[in-house]
């Protein structure tokens, strides 16, 4: 008997679902063992019945639920509760679901501040009223899933690497709990670290680091030690997949920005990074926008309207 799987996307960009499709042939191999009962990106199962006649959301029962995106409006909340009710094992898929992700940057502003701005940009008809009919009212801020419903498995990543999605699904098919390591991005990064660099201030990424393009990452000096803010030390590993490649951004010679969220589910990337920098004698006021260290993990009340920019 194939295992029933349901998927929904909430305050998401659909990148997590594209990561599922990026399983490619692995997905084809998995198909005989799983049966999708609800997955809007691929399949036309409807919330209100196939003829739109029901009054309440109805998602079929499933063993495994994959839920991407955080919670931003009342419809998201309703769908999340229904998924929780109908799925035996609920996976928070992606950093939006586990920590709020990029959309939780909105938590630095009140709804009024942002709606007024959005409906009065230079291209918008002057005097536009804020829409309010037949659309779902906003929650007061953007929430991670576990602030409102119970989550069984956390699978962060923006998006999660397809290898990790496969690992998790395969483990569940075998009746096991997926074993995802708690390592940092630095732990998987081959760049050369010499210990304390001689930097005291942080550079912006408007110039290129030094490296020889004909040589591997293992011959490049760590970007942080070159003075670029790299969130590798405080970010959970996984983006490189199972093949032992370099972390994805580092392989393009670009510093990590923390998209997998903190190393531990309840860690705080901002505090941990400031500590790490300060203890290496780096002036933390040289970071142009410190709240950006919470760029992927602004839910759980980490970002609030009073913490907007920097100072």
């Amino acid at each position, binding site marked *: 008997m194939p295992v029933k799987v349901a998927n929904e996307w909430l305050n998401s960009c*659909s990148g997590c679902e594209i990561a599922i499709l990026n399983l490619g042939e692995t997905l084809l191999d998995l*198909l005989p063992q799983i049966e999708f009962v609800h997955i809007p990106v691929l399949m036309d199962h*409807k919330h209100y019945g196939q003829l739109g006649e029901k009054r309440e959301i109805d998602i079929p029962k499933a063993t495994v639920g994959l839920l991407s995106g955080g919670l931003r409006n009342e419809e998201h909340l309703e769908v999340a509760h229904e998924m929780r009710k109908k799925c035996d094992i609920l996976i928070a898929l992606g950093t939006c679901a586990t920590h709020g992700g990029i959309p939780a940057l909105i938590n630095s502003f009140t709804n009024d501040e942002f709606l007024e701005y959005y409906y009065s940009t230079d291209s918008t008809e002057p005097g536009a009223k804020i829409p309010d009919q037949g*659309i779902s009212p*906003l929650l007061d801020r953007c929430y991670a899933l576990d602030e409102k419903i119970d989550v069984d498995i956390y699978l962060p990543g923006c998006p999660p690497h397809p290898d990790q999605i496969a690992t998790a699904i395969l483990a569940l098919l075998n009746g096991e709990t997926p074993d995802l390591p708690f390592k940092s991005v630095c732990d998987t990064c081959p760049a050369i670290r010499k210990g304390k660099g001689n930097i005291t201030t942080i550079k912006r990424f408007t*110039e290129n680091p030094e490296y020889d393009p004909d040589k591997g990452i293992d011959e490049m000096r760590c970007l942080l030690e070159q003075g670029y803010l790299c969130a590798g030390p405080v970010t959970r590993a996984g983006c490189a997949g199972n093949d032992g490649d370099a972390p994805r951004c580092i392989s393009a010679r670009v510093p990590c920005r923390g998209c997998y969220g903190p190393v531990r589910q309840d860690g705080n990337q901002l505090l941990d990074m400031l500590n790490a920098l300060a203890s290496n004698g780096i002036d933390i006021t040289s970071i*142009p926008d410190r709240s950006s260290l919470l760029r992927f993990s602004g839910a759980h009340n980490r970002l609030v309207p009073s913490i907007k*920019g920097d100072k």
Partner: protein
Amino acid sequence: MGKTIHISPLSRIEGHANIDIQLDDNGEVASATTHFNSIRGFEKYVQGKPAEEVTRIVTRICGICPWHHHLSSTKAVDACFGANVAPAGHMLRECMQNMAHINDKILHFYFLAAPDFIMGPDADYKVRNVIGIAQAAPELAKKVIKMRQLGQMMMEKFAGKVIHPIAAVPGGFSKPMSDSQRKELIESTKTLLDFATFSMAHAKENIFPAYMDDVTTLGSITTGFIGTVDYHGALNFYDGNIRLMMIDGSFQDFNDADYLDYIAEHVEPTSYGKFPYAKSWNQGFSMDIDNPKGVYRSNCLARLNTCDHISTPLAQAELEAFREQFGRPAQHTLLYHWARLIELVYACEKTLELLMDTAICGKETRFEVSPKAGRGVGHVEAPRGTLIHDYTTDENGLIEKANMIVGTTHNLAPISMSVEQSAKMLIKDGHVDETILNKVEMSVRAYDP
């Protein structure tokens, strides 16, 4: 009033929308409203961020077309900082832009749209999807999945990240391409080009002919169009003028920096998404399906209508045949799928052309830039339409003000109109069934919000 039908969620599309169809006492469609239900506020929360960081934040607007946001945003930041772009960096960006189009078109055509054509609009929803295709036509499905995977992985291997990319930077690109990478990419692109011509021929022979009635009626409306053309009037996904075409086929070309003179956004009480329209036509805005005002469409059909020609041979031949059959501008909504395949051929040919030039392997891919105050507008053609990012920075190069018009929004008015048109055409005497409702959705999937 009669009953209300809620179609929610719209499926096999990218994005969050639903439809309410209201029937009157006689069972006729009184109204059909498409609600675009997603609002996240990127314009607001990029404020105060260093502009060079914003290029890797706005990618999360869409996980299907993150490259186009990344590139359009990087072009806007270049303009804010007055940056020159290193020639090899420019080529690499343009190459990634075209590669990303290849993957998107395979995804959209085969995964999102084709189930309606291959399994049929009346097939049970349980099999009317790519998994159903995998069972009914395993060889085709396998090929499609392999090709999409090839396209995704070639970008990831070279540029680090394929979903939510990071490699385009103000002043250029973060790393050079080696000659061996170039050769490997050429081989992969050739494979994809073969697949593109196969798809084109396969669809023209086996898919479209069976649905010609639907193609010429379903969701049909008459509007203007928007797209980007280079300085010779040829289709271009990366650079050039924006061309706004009126219903009669006449057009205005303009520079992206002047977009505010040509486009405005209307707000409806029933959607979070705003509705762009042609301000420069001076007719205001109306979604009346018989007499629309200011409404134009974006995405592949729009681009093929607006361009004078295509610079690559196989796609140009397809365009000529297409124009012969459907005219210019072609209006039928389901022709979007046909146009999508022509663009798939073009994107492969164009990528190959860029890779054949060894200058793409130039070692200097990035000029150093300094953050400063300025205003910059950047645009590219995203698969779903002309994508505009407009930023103003302060003296530290932090974002002060931002406005974005994403590809899909240009199509929100036409999508709403096509939904209303198809609902009114198909629902009679209160009779609705799954096939009818799926056909209403097919008129959305042509554009894909």
